[in-house]
């Protein structure tokens, strides 16, 4: 994904066991913070609505 131009830090991979609830919370917080910091990039990752309805 990074090769295609996704910024490092927008995509995260983690291994969390179902027993590791605290790790899940930590990771979720960290991911949302980091992705928010990167911003929306003019919504280029979101499909635009068709111009003709």
């Amino acid at each position, binding site marked *: *994904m990074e*090769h*295609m*131009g*996704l*910024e490092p830090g927008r995509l995260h*991979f*983690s291994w969390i066991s179902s027993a590791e609830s605290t790790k899940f919370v930590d*990771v979720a917080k960290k991911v949302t913070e980091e992705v928010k910091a990167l911003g929306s990039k003019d919504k280029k990752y979101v499909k635009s609505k068709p111009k003709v309805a």
Partner: protein
Amino acid sequence: MTTYIDKIKEISKRLLRDGKVDMVIGFRKGSLPMMNQPMFARNEGDVDSFVWDSSCGVNLANYVTDRSERIGIVAKGCDSRNLVVHIIENKIKRDQLYIIGVPCTAMIDRHRIAAMVPGEIESIEENTADGTITVKGEGFSETLNKADLLQENCALCMHRNPVIQDEPVADPVPEQSPDDVDRYAKVREVESMSPEEKWAYFDDLFSDCIRCYACRNACPLCYCPTCFVDESKPQWVGKSIDPTDIRTFHFLRAYHCAGRCTDCGACVRSCPMGINVRALTKKLEKDCLEQFDWESGLTLDKRPPLDVFRPDDPEEFIK
């Protein structure tokens, strides 16, 4: 290279005559110049239509998927590697195949040649003795060096000789080594870009895509009964030519080829818009080589990297 054809015909006829195979898959002249077609010869008479020249870029491994017959198949280096992939993935049995190995002297790039001449190409003549190709059309005739016209993947190819075969049609051709040619120069170029530049690069690369799926259909790896782009329940990817949908299609298709792609160039060759689809698969090939020391389709004895678990798999990206 055209001298190979007599040997290909001789072997094919013998196989059919002796009943060793039910058919031989080879090439016949296409209806357009530089577009030789796959052909299934079921009797000795059919074999007379076989041809061999520098326009036999189609990957014939694509045509043996899930077949039940005994098949003779004409195979270049890349076709033979894709046959290995097919055998490993249980798409055909080794003993169903009689592989007629063709040491390949590279195929020509139809997109590049079409862009070099002023009009529509009507005929192509190849002179193997001096390595030239004469391109003719209405009002022009140009003689070009074959070496300047190669498909990019052929120019970078390290496995021109079949890796698996039952009978060769000629002595092996000299192989290129990674020291002679830099296979991954273009990949590194993209790797060194900033995320914005990368994004723009691929936006531009895929901007002409018309979602015809010729790349998928020409690819010997793309044999799923229903491709993810054709699924409707659930619909994984939008069907439009919105840049997001196009990118999703190419990105996912490339990923499905990770550790399997032999860089045969069938996708690029088949693309009516001349898009370099290999830009994605070549990156995956490079990663496989660097991280798993893996080149696909070279041996029947090793399982591909995505098929095995190793405790020492590189996984720095998992946090």
